[in-house]
């Protein structure tokens, strides 16, 4: 029995790619897990691993072929003894997914190979965000920044420092304190083809504008049958800062990640911040960009390449491990890494995944990791009920049930409004030892 090897979807948004290189030739023996080809998407070069075993009977799409649609047969895998041939045939028309099937096929065991961007230097997350905006403002006149104190004050958190000087008041626009109004204004401008970056002084204040974000920005493309989109970025600090109490300390990740029509990004490092913000500004869809005030001043290595950009929808494995998978985003990536250090001292090897994007969610990377480690602990600052951890763990149960050696676990902020008192605040927010304890219950 021969089977077709199909062009895999290597990212949630990938529809086609280039077959860059065959690493096996006709007649070669193939085992499950062997890397058989390299595929270039618009975002990265990735390796394709065989899922089945057999002998490579036929190559259907030659090296160098571009625009190969996802799900196109690219090769035939035959059982031993079956005839081999290298005659390329016309790729079959891509199969369209039946509408009621689960949305995306799981690309099992696809390793995410990140583009090597070369030399790096140490910069703060604050500088990374500013540099990303400056680069995109230079590249595209449709891009502008508006929000409270973004221009003359140079940003409430100094993220827009220097932008007014370079780009002037036409493109760096101070608004009155009127989130509902200026968010709606920006959405209207985006519907007419401009590319606004809306800075919320914090995402807590975006609650005033959430109707425009969900009902207008996220739904218009669908309601208009694809006629009218909304290329816009809503960005600002999200989650707890330090001692600012309940109304200024909430994680909105699960609120926005819940909604189709939005993309939701939550960077941790300076490289995340720069690469993902550039991608968000270029994206033709509304993007919620959740920053973190405490991270603004932290230094990270960041590529210096002027073209540096990261794909939305790909997670990053920050630390490779074998015993448990820790899944985190934003500031909690640092907490998970500290926990992994502590676990290593106790002889437990933790793999740490930095999600980077929450919608689309790179569940494939999580699934591949959990199938390897057989255990998962999610780490988030937000509340547990219907949170990001709840969603990830449910998807892991759906896709890794037979691989799991322990129930999925989650670490999260306590289910209370965040208190002001220093000791109480610390008690309410996830600490590395919470993660360590959660892992030790599983092993």
């Amino acid at each position: 029995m021969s089977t077709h090897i199909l062009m895999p979807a290597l990212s949630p948004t990938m529809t086609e790619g280039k077959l860059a290189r065959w690493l096996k030739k006709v007649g070669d023996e193939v085992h499950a897990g062997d890397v058989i080809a390299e595929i270039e998407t618009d975002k990265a070069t990735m390796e394709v691993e065989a899922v089945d075993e057999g002998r490579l009977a036929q190559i259907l799409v030659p090296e160098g072929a571009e625009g190969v649609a996802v799900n196109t047969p690219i090769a035939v895998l035959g059982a031993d003894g079956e005839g081999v041939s290298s005659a390329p045939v016309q790729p079959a028309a891509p199969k369209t997914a039946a509408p009621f099937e689960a949305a995306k096929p799981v690309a099992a065991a696809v390793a995410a190979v990140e583009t090597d961007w070369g030399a790096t230097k140490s910069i703060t997350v604050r500088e990374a965000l500013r540099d990303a905006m400056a680069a995109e403002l230079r590249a595209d006149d449709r891009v502008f920044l508006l929000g409270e104190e973004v221009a003359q004050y140079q940003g409430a958190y100094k993220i827009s420092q220097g932008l007014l000087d370079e780009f002037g008041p036409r493109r760096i626009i101070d608004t009155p304190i009127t989130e509902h109004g200026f968010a709606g204004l920006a959405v209207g401008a985006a519907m007419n083809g401009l590319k606004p970056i809306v800075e919320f002084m914090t995402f807590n204040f975006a609650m005033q504008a959430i109707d425009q974000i969900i009902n207008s920005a996220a739904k218009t493309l669908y309601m208009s049958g694809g006629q009218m989109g909304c290329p816009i970025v809503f960005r600002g600090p999200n989650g707890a800062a330090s001692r600012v109490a309940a109304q200024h300390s909430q994680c909105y990740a699960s609120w926005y990640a819940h909604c189709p029509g939005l993309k939701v990004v939550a960077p941790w490092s300076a490289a995340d911040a720069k690469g993902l913000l550039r991608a968000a500004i270029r994206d033709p869809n509304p993007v919620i960009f959740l920053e973190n005030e405490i991270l603004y001043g932290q230094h990270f290595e960041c590529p210096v390449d002027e073209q540096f950009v990261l794909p939305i929808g790909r997670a990053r494995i920050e630390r490779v491990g074998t015993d448990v998978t820790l899944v985190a985003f934003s500031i909690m990536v640092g907490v998970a890494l500290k926990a992994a250090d502590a676990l290593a001292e106790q002889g437990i090897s933790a793999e740490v995944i930095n999600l980077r994007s929450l919608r689309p969610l790179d569940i494939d990377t999580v699934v591949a990791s959990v199938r390897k480690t057989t255990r998962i602990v999610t780490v988030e600052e937000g509340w547990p009920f219907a949170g990001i951890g709840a969603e990830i763990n449910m998807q892991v149960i759906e896709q890794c049930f037979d691989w799991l050696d322990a129930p999925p676990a989650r670490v999260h902020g306590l289910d209370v409004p965040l208190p002001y008192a220093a000791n109480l605040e610390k008690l309410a927010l996830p600490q590395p030892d919470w993660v360590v304890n959660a892992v030790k219950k599983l092993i």
Partner: protein
Amino acid sequence: MAQAAEARKRGKARTGLSEEDLLRAYHDMLLIRRFEEKAGQLYGMGLIGGFCHLYIGQEAVVVGLQMALKPGDQVITSYRDHGHMLATGMEARGVMAELTGRAGGYSRGKGGSMHMFSKEKNFFGGHGIVGAQVSLGTGLAFSNFYRGNDHVCLTYFGEGASNQGQVYESFNLAALMKLPVVYVIENNRYGMGTSVERASASHELWKNGAPWGIPGAQVDGMDVEAVHQAGVAAVAHCRAGSGPFLLEMQTYRYRGHSMSDPAKYRTREEVEKMRSERDCIEHARARLAELGADEAAIKRIDDEVKRVVQDAADFAQSSPEPDPAELWTDVLVEG
């Protein structure tokens, strides 16, 4: 401000449209009236579902104002939007097929009565959250300002929406930045079942922009010529870079708020009185007679409108339902 004063004056004065323009206005108003009557009929037959807000009675507002625009100007409104779409020149077929939820509709059946758009005609919806389109329209005007062109955005909302907070946030932003937006309050006297007197402490809605220095005018919205003249002045004010303008159109809807509204909040006599004494289409007919327009020309318009509406209704019933695969398209722009 001189222009504002002039607009107010002209809003009340009657200098009139040419016979040719008045015939065009008559055509457009009649098309909306007959279209909406047909939509009501199809709703009753179960061919249109959900919410359906008819525009019958208010036709002079959109027709008169549209005639004050030039190509490239934008229009945005709320969910009582069929009239606005037809006035901008969108096809009756595509609008009606959207009402019946068919593939031939402007949103391919995914928007319905409240959510249609046309890039080609610069019609930006079609919005179901009361007042939201006011901020969006301000943003459309901002895009003109940003690009440095002289286009204007007509932003329609009802007197009910005029109590929403974001309307005043938008007034402030538009006045600060001098954005080219004409805010049009279609005061049809009832926000669903609540009369304007019970909902608004302000009784002169055209003055609601005054704290921000936005000039305004109150206009007889049942008289297409008065509407047109007020629109010309307001649009000129915006095009000249003088900032936003506010028009209060005094109008009336003959039907309920939506199809399911029994309209117990007003008397039958009140509706009858408006219909018989103030109807915009009858009024235009009388004016055409005064101008000595050819009866045959009017008859031709009546026949033409009837044919277009019947064709739209036929199309809306014969167009197929959207393919199930449409469920998953247009959630995000791919690529």
